[in-house]
């Protein structure tokens, strides 16, 4: 839609960028954009339109207000009418990604003959006729960003960090960072690195290190203590994965849940051990 505040129309348009109307304002504010862990997007909007003559058109059904919502990355573009002055627009999972532009407008749903608006600029005379679908109100464009968390691999939210501050033979967890940090002293760190590099070592690593770590993360997310973690980047990925597996973070058994989240690594231990001993 090649229309913006600089566009010129052969008919009056209520907009900040012209004086087609001697009074009146039209604005849209996006009050909140929510992404559910399942990927659905909800946009809360609030319109304000103060011109009585246009209000009459809206109330009589002769005009509509809403916004052109456009996402270039996903080739999405749609004219979304507003349901009243404020409300929520909903979008299915995956419809939007990246920059989403919102172009608020008021348009005519029917032909308007000899429309008489007191606040109309005198240049237009006392009455004017306009065709159906003409835009009669434009507000400033706005935009927001939609992220893409689902592709982050579960393991990518974990980071193994070498530290000399904890005793040899032990591991510790740090949930206060952007990722879940597994703190390991030098010797364990080295062993884990070795296991990571071997395809047979992966089930061992997942069972011996990640399984208890995931159990502790789940435990930390339970009850009121979870509130501090919701803003952490790793939380969305973790919660999304739990939702995908139907795991109720509050109540699900820890060991069973951790095994499901990690793809049952214990079940692969036997094969892994056999291959390791055969290749030794």
């Amino acid at each position, binding site marked *: 839609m090649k229309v913006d505040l600089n566009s010129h129309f052969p008919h009056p348009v209520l907009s900040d960028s012209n004086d087609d109307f001697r009074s009146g304002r039209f604005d849209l504010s996006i009050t909140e954009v929510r992404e559910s862990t399942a990927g659905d997007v909800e946009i809360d909007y609030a319109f304000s339109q103060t011109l009585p003559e246009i209000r009459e058109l809206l109330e009589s059904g002769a005009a509509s207000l809403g916004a052109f919502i456009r996402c270039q990355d996903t080739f999405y573009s749609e004219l979304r009418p507003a349901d009243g002055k404020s409300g929520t627009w909903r979008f299915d999972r995956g419809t939007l990604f990246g920059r989403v532009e919102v172009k608020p407008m008021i348009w005519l749903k029917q032909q308007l003959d000899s429309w008489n608006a007191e606040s109309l600029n005198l240049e237009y005379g006392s009455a004017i006729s306009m065709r159906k679908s003409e835009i009669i109100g434009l507000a400033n464009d706005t935009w927001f960003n939609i992220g893409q968390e689902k592709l982050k691999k579960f393991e990518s939210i974990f980071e193994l960090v070498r530290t000399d501050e904890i005793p040899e033979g032990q591991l510790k967890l740090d949930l206060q960072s952007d990722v879940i940090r597994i703190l390991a002293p030098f010797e364990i760190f080295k062993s884990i690195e070795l296991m990571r590099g071997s395809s047979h070592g992966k089930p061992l690593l997942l069972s011996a290190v990640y399984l208890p770590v995931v159990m502790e993360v789940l435990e930390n997310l339970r009850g009121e203590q979870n509130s501090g973690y919701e803003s952490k980047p790793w939380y969305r990925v973790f919660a999304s*994965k739990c939702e995908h597996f139907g795991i109720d973070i509050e109540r699900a058994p820890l060991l069973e849940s951790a095994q499901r989240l990690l793809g049952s690594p214990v079940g692969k231990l036997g094969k892994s051990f056999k291959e390791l001993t055969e290749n030794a």
Partner: protein
Amino acid sequence: MHKLKYFSESVLAELRANVSRNLERYRASGFGDRTDQNGWAMELSAVEVEPEKLAVLSQSGGSAAEISNSMLVFEAIEGMTPSLATEERVWSRLTHFECLDYTRGRWPIKDDPREKNGLFDGLTGAKEKAHEKRKKVLHQNITQIEKHYFARGRTGYRDDNSVARLWWNAYIAKRIDPQDQEGVLIELLRTADIRSNLVERPMLSNRADLMRGIIRTMRNHPDIYGAEITFRDFMKAVNIRGGGVLFEALSTQETDGILLKCRDDALRKGEKASQAA
């Protein structure tokens, strides 16, 4: 059905950086030996793929093959969303594994010209010429691989990646008319020029009401694509006449009325040009 796999960031970066070193793999041996390594086969939990459908993609470049391939790819990947379909790691994994044969056949990689090392070759300059030719072929091959095996940016996944472009063709067709996806594809993919005029213009291709109108006009008045220049003039007229029109608020008849005028503009322009010639 299998879970759809994708590359890790580091694997994608490694592949991008090593196109020339991997030329032999792209030509013949493939990447099968790497699949067990870390980051080469990460799984998407919510998207499944039917490899049998991808295995029968036609390597011909004609319009009919493009239409059936687009439908096959769209049907083969269940649970794909537009936001996920912008992800280079997903499409690159498909072109390097499941659709490697198709991509090779559709956009073949040239063989290296033979080196000339004889004494006579050195004296006649044939050695230098052969060297230049090798460099040129290498450059062409790298460009070909970067274009069709990877999917960087909007143009990368919509127009260039050998598999992603097929999915996006079908997705855009479905958005235009969910009841007649294949019928829309027939019009969108008539020629490369028509695809470029319709699909590669996001200001246009994402406006379903307007696109439906254009498809109807193409069906009812095939003369608008009788010649490449006529279709281009038609699209120019759509740009001029439809620039500020809110097609979304118009009825089918009203939209068709405007597009018919655009068709008349294009045909008139063609007639004037042929009279002048």
